[in-house]
């Protein structure tokens, strides 16, 4: 509850301020992120673009609470997460962030509904209504009992999206979500992202695909660990 209040008081789901991530490679110091400032509001969809090694994935790792920054501030739903311990981060990820990967990472021996239910298992929750609701939302009612090998790439990504949403996260992080999909399937997945954003979910998409990138409200281009360019495509109310 406190989290939600914090999120509504400043109106930002995500607030990144002067974020740095520095690595040592031998005697060389590499700044994978060098003073990044970024924010995300509920219902906003942001594309992160840039060449390989520009800092996109490093940013996703930070925002997804998978890695800790070297310095700077990272607030998610109003909570400063940089100081959280591992177990606290596990709980935080479970309740706040949904992940979508390029390779889907569905468990091949679990059915569609079992894959979607998996994050609920980790959260020690039972919410069959939510599983059914998401299966319907991504249009997989007929494939509920199917195994991933019986699905095409688009359907597998739909399962991955439903799985990312099952714990009712505050925002979605998608890493090249259409990287393995055909063009017409990409459009369908984009539509789902728009619907989710329209429902108030924040969506961050890291992509090399210029078409997908331009579906977002805002494009943030990374270069050498910094934001090189920011383009607003749709003004939000």
């Amino acid at each position, binding site marked *: 509850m406190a989290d939600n209040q914090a999120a509504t008081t400043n109106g930002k789901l995500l607030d990144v301020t002067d974020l740095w991530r520095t690595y040592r490679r031998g005697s060389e110091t590499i700044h994978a992120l060098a003073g990044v400032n970024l924010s995300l509001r509920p219902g906003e969809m942001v594309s992160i673009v840039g060449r*390989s090694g520009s800092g996109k*994935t490093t940013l*996703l*790792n930070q925002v*997804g609470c*998978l*890695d800790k920054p070297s310095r700077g501030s990272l607030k998610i739903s109003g909570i400063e997460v940089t100081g959280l311990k*591992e*177990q606290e981060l*596990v*709980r935080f*990820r*479970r*309740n706040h962030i949904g*992940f979508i*990967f*390029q*390779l889907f*990472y569905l*468990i*091949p*021996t*679990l059915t569609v509904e079992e894959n979607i239910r*998996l*994050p609920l*298992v*980790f*959260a020690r929750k039972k919410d069959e209504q939510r599983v059914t609701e998401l299966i319907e939302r991504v249009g997989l009612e007929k494939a509920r009992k199917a195994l991933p090998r019986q699905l095409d790439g688009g359907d597998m990504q739909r399962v991955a999206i439903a*799985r*990312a949403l099952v*714990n009712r996260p505050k925002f979605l992080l998608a*890493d090249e979500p259409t990287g393995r999909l055909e063009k017409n399937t990409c459009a369908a997945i984009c539509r789902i992202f728009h619907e989710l954003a329209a429902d108030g979910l924040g969506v961050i998409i890291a992509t090399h695909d210029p078409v997908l990138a331009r579906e977002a409200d805002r494009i943030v281009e990374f270069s050498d660990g910094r934001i090189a360019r920011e383009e607003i495509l749709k003004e939000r109310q």
Partner: protein
Amino acid sequence: MIWFILGFKNLIRRPTRTVLTVLGVAIAIAVLYSLFEFQQGYQSRLKGELGALGAHVMVVPKGCPYEAATIALHGGKWPRYMDESLLDKVKANPGVAEAAGVIMDAVFPPGGQSVIMLGIDEDYMKLRPAWKLRGSWFTSDSSIILGPSVAEDSKLEPGDLWTLPEKNETLRVSAVLGRTNTQDDGFVFMPRRTLQRISGLEGKLVLILIKAMKVDQTDALVASLKADEVDMNVFPLSELLGTISALMASTRVFVSAIILIAIILGGVGVLNTVLMAVFERTREIGMMKAMGGSRSDMFKLVWAETMLTTLLGGLVGVGLAVVSSRLVEAIIRGMIPYAPKGSLIGFSLPTMLFCIGLSLLLGLLAGFYPAFRAASIKPIEAIKTE
């Protein structure tokens, strides 16, 4: 329970590998079960055989006493004899309650079944109070009592005639012995004098079975019999049991060491397989952690998977041991100098539970390191650029 379900689903992803790993554990557990059961069956059957002799002390001619004891237990032909007059000396000992002199012989007709004959008298019956005869005791010098197995095989009933192979001697069946489930079931009993005559061993004995006046004074009785007569071996049956058991124990240590090695190798095999599976699933485990799976969740998942593997191995192993018990028993019998008759490897719930418990313990130990490795995988692995 959910971790076991997820673990099971992971196991069926690579069925060949899982089957081979389970088989490795199953073979080790099957051998363990067979050995345990064999030991217990051996002890209990040996005690039963010795108990069926109805005696506390055995007197045999000079020579290897254990060879003599084996002949006494299973019957056969042993070319060493004692003078029958020793029987009177033994009976005269005040510590002796009952004593029965026995002569034994066997014929081995070519292509036919061997016939083991025991020449006994009424004193022998006193050592066999549980015997039940269908028919009557020897009615003449040419009458015999058939063990039930012999009677079944030859389809003879009391009153029928029986011809001793190779000796051209026809004798009449006076009784068929009720089943005792001991070595007696396979013998042909006849009056001692008759067998001595047929075998040309007049005045000779192979064995004297003695029932002590007081069981707790058996050692004193043995000492006193040894002092009386030097031309025979006197030993209490308890000593025989102890000696044969000690012989078996030395074999057991050797076999146990082999089994222990087999189980350790099985465990290492399981560890290796599960560890490989963890490495292969690094990104998948990373994904699960990114989605809210904790270290302990990943640990439990892999641990449950390992325990399932070894538990399956344990169950299959016990099943394998029970199914192949006859074959295994025959192999072990061929490797040891003496084994009691009857089935030695059977169906024992405590041994099964022990073996299954051990397979679970194996899973706990073998699964610890792979589970630890799985728990240590960082969620960042999942989001690394392909």
